[in-house]
């Protein structure tokens, strides 16, 4: 390698070092860690949302179960009323026949 070539190589090496040094801080500014933080925030946000949706589903299911129970109770109540009505109607008819003169 001639002296001229070597000095040229050293010059370019120096220039590359300077350029690399000037570029490195700007790469740091992009900050992959910063990206990761936002993803974590988003994940936390999604987890909160997921939890609130699951809570809402549980709440709706509980309401549904309560309504199912209430419906069953009301059906039982209605059946009791039907039975009482039938009994009273029978009694009314008996009395009406007894009233015939």
């Amino acid at each position, binding site marked *: 390698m001639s002296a001229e070539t070597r000095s040229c190589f050293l010059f370019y090496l120096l220039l590359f070092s300077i350029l690399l040094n000037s570029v490195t801080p700007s790469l740091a500014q992009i900050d992959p860690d910063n990206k990761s933080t936002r993803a974590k925030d988003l994940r936390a946000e999604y987890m909160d949302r997921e939890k609130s949706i699951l809570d809402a589903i549980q709440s709706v299911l509980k309401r549904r179960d309560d309504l199912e129970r209430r419906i069953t109770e009301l059906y039982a109540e209605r059946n009791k009323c039907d039975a009482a009505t039938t009994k009273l109607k*029978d009694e009314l*008819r*008996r009395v*009406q*026949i*007894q009233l*015939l*003169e």
Partner: protein
Amino acid sequence: MLSTNKPILLGLALSCIVGIINPTVAADESVIPTGWEMKGSRPNDYLVMIDPQQKRDGKPILIMQSKTSPIDGFGTVMQKISTEKYLGKRLRFSADVKSENVVDAAGIWMRVDAGSGNTIALDNMEKRPIKGNNDWKNYSVVLDVSPRGTQVCIGILTHSTGKIWVSNLKLEEVGKDVPVTDILNKDENPTAPVNLDFTQGTNK
């Protein structure tokens, strides 16, 4: 003279024509057979008459049908008789009944009274009412006439709307082997003890 009577003659002629065209005007009135009475909570809502078109086993058929709809009540054709001949006896009142579109209930009934307003035995077929459309079938009610009894009432009834044909009515004495259908003096206890060895399950 003739000219002054013209409107009257015209009116008479029109009445005759209306009578011919619309015979239901007269057919809307019940014709109750002798010995029977029309009673009930809504007796005027039913038309009762002898079927002019058919007989059953050569005997007349009584028709009872609702005239309006709905009817919140019932009508009955009934009669009362003294218990004089029947004291201490078991009586069966039966009839052949056919039904059409009976919405609520129809049937026959019998009652034994001990003095006015004191019913001591009754069956109005409340547990086996005739409903809907049914071909001819014999139905009966059986009651004991207590020595205290003063009168027996029998009848045919329809609750709410529908039409029934009734024929071949009978009131006859029956033996004690024929079970009574009394709904007032129903003995609901079994006639013999049950499950004495506890092998026939539990109540729940």
